[in-house]
C-alpha cells in the first residue's frame, strides 16, 4: 500500500527550497527533448507550467476543453495577486506572508509548502511585468497595491478588477510563443476522461474530442493535472459553467489520494439568488471590502429601503465583532457572520442578503475614485441586479467559490501516483482550511512557473526516456472503459434532465454540506446523494449522439462524478469532528460562535484512498508546526 511521504526537505524553513533545488537531479538539455509531458488544463497553473516546461526543452502536449487556452476560469479572478514585495514599506516580508497564509488557513496547511509559496511570490510579479501584464501603477510609475482580507499590509497587486484576466493572458502569451516555436502542441476541445497508468507510473491520458466524440489516447513520460476546483458540485457557485472535477476524480479512482475534500470555501461577497432558473452566482471581488462597509439592520424583518435606515439602526457587524480587521476579516469568518445575521432575520428586507455600502467612501473620496477602483464591478452589479450601487448599497450573500481540497501532493507536487503531478486549485497543498483572497492566483503561478519546472526534472531524471506508445494494451483498456461509460450514459434514456438532477444535488450539498455542518445532516446527505445517484443512472435523459458535439453528454459525465465526490466531501466533513477554517461543524464552536479547532486529534491532512464504489480508506498526514505556534485564530 502507498505510504504518504510528504518529502519535505530538511533544514531551516527559509533554506528548504533553496537546498532542495540544489539537491534535485537535473535532466541535461539534450535529453529534455526526449521526454514528453502532458499538461491538462490551461488556466494559470496549467498555462504557466506548459509554457515553462516548453521553454526548458521538453515536448509538451497541453489539453483544454475550451476552444482556446485563454478561456480558462482563472480569467474571471477579479481582485488581485499577493506578493511579499513590501513595496509599501508597511512591514511585509516573506515570513509575514507565510504567517498570514498559515493563520488564514486555520493551521491546516504544510508549513514548508506555504513558506515556499511566500518565497517565490515576488518572482511572480517580476515575471508577469516582464511579460507585459499591465498592472495598476502609481503616478510615479511604480506598481500600486491594495489590501485584501486576512492581512494588515497592502501586498495585493492588481489590474483594475481584471487581474485574473491579465495574468492568464500573460501566461497564455508565453504558451502561445511555445506553440509557435513548436515545443508545445495544444489540443483544444478535448476533455480528459481518464489517466493511463502502466507499471505503476502515470503514462498518459484518454480524452474525448468534444467536436467529433472520438476517444483519443495520448502518451507521455509524466502527466500534470491543472484542472481547477470542484465548487460546481454545489450546482450554484461562482465557478464557470464548465468547471468540473472529472479529471481529478478519474485520477482519484485510479489511485491518486484525495485530500481534505471538505474544505470548500464559501465567498462572502456574491450577488444573491434571483430564482430557480439561476445558472450560477456572480462574485463581487473581495477588494470591494477595502472601501465598502458591510451592514444589516438591527431590527428583524426590516423592509425599509436601505437608504431609509438611519445610521443608528444599522449594525456594521464585522466592524463590531472584529475591530482590528473589520470588513477585511477572512472569507470563512465573513461568510459565517453573514449567514448568522440573515438566519436571525436581519438580512436585507428580511431575506438572504446583507448590504455592502460605499456611501461613506464615495463621500470621502468622491465617486470618481471609486469608479476608477471598481468601475467594472459596479457596472457588472447593475447589469445583473438592475440597481445602481453608487446610489444604494449592493446586496450580497455568500456563495461557493473555491475549494482548498484537491488531490494530495507531496512537496514536489506529485500525487500518490508516481509521475502524476497536480497543480493549482486541483491540488490541496497551500491554503489549509481556508484560502485568503488574492492567494489563488499566487499559488497557481507559483506552481506553474517556479515549482514544477524543477520538480519535474527531478522526477524525469530518475526515469529512462523510453518510448511510450499508445498501442500498449493498457491504453486500449482505459479507452474502452471510457467508451463504455459514454454508451452507458447514452443508453439510460430516462425522463429527468442533467441540470434538474444537478440542481437537486446542489441543494443537498448547500443545505447539509455547506456553511454549517453537523453529524445528522451529513449522514442524511450521504444517504440522499446515494439515492439521487441511483436515480440518475436510471432516469437521466441525454438526447443526441455520443459521436457528435453533445453538450448534454459533457454535463452528464461531470455530474456522474459529482455524486461520488459529494459523498466523499460529506464523509470527510463527518470524519473531521472539529471546526476549522471553512469547515464549520456546529457541534464545535465557542460561545461567541467562532470555530473551535481540535488540534490534538485533527491536526492532519485527510488523504482518502478510493477502494471501490462508496468505499475509501483514510490516510493521515500529520501536520507539524515547527515555526508557527498553533493558536486560536483571532481577527478581533
Amino acid at each position, binding site marked *: 500500500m502507498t505510504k504518504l511521504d510528504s518529502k519535505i526537505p530538511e533544514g531551516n524553513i527559509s533554506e528548504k527550497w533553496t537546498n532542495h533545488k540544489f539537491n534535485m537531479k537535473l535532466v541535461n538539455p539534450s535529453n529534455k527533448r526526449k521526454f514528453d509531458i502532458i499538461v491538462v488544463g490551461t488556466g494559470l497553473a496549467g498555462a504557466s507550467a506548459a509554457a*515553462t516546461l516548453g521553454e526548458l526543452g521538453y515536448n509538451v502536449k497541453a489539453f483544454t476543453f475550451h*476552444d*482556446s487556452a*485563454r*478561456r480558462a*476560469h482563472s*480569467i*474571471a479572478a477579479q481582485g488581485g495577486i499577493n506578493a511579499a*514585495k513590501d513595496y509599501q514599506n508597511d512591514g511585509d516580508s516573506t515570513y509575514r506572508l507565510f504567517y498570514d497564509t498559515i493563520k488564514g488557513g486555520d493551521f491546516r496547511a504544510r508549513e514548508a509548502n506555504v513558506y515556499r509559496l511566500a518565497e517565490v511570490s515576488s*518572482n511572480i510579479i517580476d*515575471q508577469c*511585468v*516582464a*511579460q*507585459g501584464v*499591465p*498592472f495598476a*501603477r*502609481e*503616478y*510615479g*510609475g*511604480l*506598481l500600486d497595491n491594495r489590501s485584501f482580507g486576512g492581512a494588515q499590509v497592502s501586498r495585493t497587486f492588481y*489590474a483594475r478588477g*481584471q487581474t*485574473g*484576466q*491579465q495574468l492568464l493572458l500573460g501566461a497564455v*502569451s*508565453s504558451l*502561445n*510563443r511555445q506553440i*509557435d516555436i513548436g515545443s508545445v502542441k495544444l489540443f483544444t476541445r478535448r476533455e480528459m476522461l481518464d489517466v493511463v497508468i502502466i507499471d505503476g507510473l502515470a503514462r498518459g491520458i484518454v480524452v474525448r474530442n468534444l*467536436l467529433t466524440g472520438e476517444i483519443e489516447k495520448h502518451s507521455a513520460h509524466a502527466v500534470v493535472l491543472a484542472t481547477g476546483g470542484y465548487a460546481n458540485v454545489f450546482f450554484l457557485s461562482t465557478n*464557470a*459553467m464548465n468547471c468540473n472535477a472529472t479529471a481529478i476524480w478519474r485520477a482519484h479512482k485510479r489511485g491518486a489520494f484525495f485530500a481534505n475534500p471538505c474544505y470548500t470555501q464559501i465567498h462572502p461577497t456574491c450577488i444573491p439568488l*434571483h*430564482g430557480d*432558473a*439561476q*445558472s450560477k452566482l*456572480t462574485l463581487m471581488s473581495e477588494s470591494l471590502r477595502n472601501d465598502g462597509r458591510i451592514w444589516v439592520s438591527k431590527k428583524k424583518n426590516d423592509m425599509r429601503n436601505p437608504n431609509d435606515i438611519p445610521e443608528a439602526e444599522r449594525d456594521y457587524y464585522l466592524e463590531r465583532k472584529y475591530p482590528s480587521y473589520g470588513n477585511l476579516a477572512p472569507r470563512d469568518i465573513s461568510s459565517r457572520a453573514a449567514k448568522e445575521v440573515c438566519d436571525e432575520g436581519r438580512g436585507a428586507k428580511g431575506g438572504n442578503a446583507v448590504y455592502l455600502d460605499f456611501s461613506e467612501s464615495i463621500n470621502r473620496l468622491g465617486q470618481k475614485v471609486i469608479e476608477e477602483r471598481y468601475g467594472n464591478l459596479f*457596472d*457588472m452589479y447593475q*447589469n*445583473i441586479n*438592475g440597481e445602481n450601487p453608487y446610489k444604494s448599497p449592493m446586496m450580497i450573500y455568500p456563495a461557493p467559490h473555491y475549494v482548498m481540497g484537491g488531490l494530495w501532493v507531496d512537496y514536489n507536487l506529485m500525487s500518490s501516483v508516481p509521475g502524476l503531478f497536480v497543480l493549482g486549485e486541483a491540488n490541496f497543498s497551500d491554503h489549509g482550511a481556508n484560502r485568503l483572497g488574492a492567494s489563488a492566483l499566487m499559488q497557481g503561478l507559483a506552481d506553474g*512557473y*517556479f515549482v514544477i519546472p524543477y520538480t519535474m526534472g527531478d522526477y524525469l531524471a530518475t526515469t529512462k526516456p523510453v518510448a511510450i506508445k499508445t498501442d500498449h494494451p493498457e491504453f486500449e483498456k482505459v479507452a474502452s472503459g471510457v467508451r463504455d461509460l459514454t454508451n452507458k450514459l447514452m443508453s439510460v434514456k430516462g*425522463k429527468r434532465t442533467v*441540470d*434538474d438532477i444537478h440542481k437537486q444535488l446542489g441543494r443537498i450539498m448547500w443545505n447539509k454540506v455547506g456553511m454549517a455542518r453537523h453529524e445528522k445532516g451529513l449522514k442524511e446527505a450521504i444517504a440522499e446523494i446515494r439515492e439521487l445517484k441511483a436515480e440518475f443512472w436510471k432516469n437521466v*435523459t*441525454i*438526447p443526441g449522439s455520443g459521436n*457528435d*458535439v453533445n*453538450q*448534454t453528454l459533457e454535463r452528464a459525465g461531470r455530474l456522474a462524478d459529482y455524486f461520488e465526490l459529494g459523498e466523499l466531501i460529506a464523509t470527510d466533513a463527518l470524519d473531521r469532528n472539529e471546526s476549522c477554517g471553512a469547515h464549520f461543524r456546529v457541534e464545535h464552536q465557542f460561545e461567541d460562535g467562532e470555530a473551535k479547532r481540535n488540534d490534538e486529534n485533527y491536526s492532519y491532512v485527510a488523504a482518502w484512498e478510493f477502494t471501490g464504489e462508496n468505499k475509501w480508506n483514510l490516510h493521515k498526514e500529520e501536520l507539524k508546526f515547527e515555526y508557527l505556534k498553533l493558536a486560536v485564530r483571532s481577527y478581533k
Partner: protein
Amino acid sequence: MEVKKLNLTLNIWRQKNANSVGSFAEYKVQVSPDASFLEMLDEINDSLEVKGEEAIHFESDCREGICGTCGLVINGQPHGPLPKIATCQLHMRNFKDGETIWVEPFRAKAFPVIKDLMVDRSGFDKILYAGGYVSFNTGGAPDGNAIPISKEISSLAMDAAACIGCGACVAACKNASAMLFVSAKVSQYALLPQGQPERYRRVEQMVAVMDELGFGSCTNTYACEAECPKGISVTNIARMNRDFMMAKIKSKEVEV
C-alpha cells in the same frame, strides 16, 4: 415577491453541423425578467431535453462577461441590444412582454458554424501564436519596479488588454475584419516598454496571419467599436496601422 413573467417568441438558428443547411426554429417562452438571456436558453434546453430533443448548442463559460466564450447575434446585434456587455450579461428585463427575438450565431467566413449557435473562432488564436507575446523565458526577470511606467501609458495598455477575444468585432463588421482584435493586442505591447524590442516584427507577423485566415479589410465603419463588450477603441487600429507602415519602412531598409 412574484415578478411578472415575460411572454416571448424566439426564432433561434438551428444547424446540425458545419456542412448542413441551417434554419430558424420558433420557440414560445415565459421567462422571469431577472433571468439572464443564457438562463432563458438553459430553460428552453431543459424543456427540449425532457422531450428527448437535442439541446440548442451555444457556448458560454464564466457568465460574468470576461472569458469571451459566449457570443450570439440577438436581433441583428452581436451580444444584443445593450452597449458594452457580453451576451451572458444581458438580462431579460431589457426586453418587452410579447416581443419576438431573433438569435443567430456570429457570422463570418473565418468563423464557421460548428453546430447551432456554436462557431469556430480558433483563427484568433492562430494570430496570437504569430506574435502576441513578449519573447521572454521564465526566470531572470528584473524587479517589477525596475522600469517605471507612467500611469497614463499603463492605463492605455490596460484599455487595449481588456479585450476578451469574443469575436463580436468580426461579427459586427461588414467585411468580417479582425482589425480591432489584432490591434488591441498589438497596441498593448506597442505602448509598453517591454514590447519595444519586437514591436515591428510583431505587427508584421500578426497582420500576415490575419490576412491568410480570410478576415476582411478595415473600411473604418467603427461597427466593431460600437459592438465591443469591452469598449475597445478604434484608436488601436490607427496605432496598429502606424506601426505596420513603420514596420514596412524599416524592413525595406534592412533588405537594402
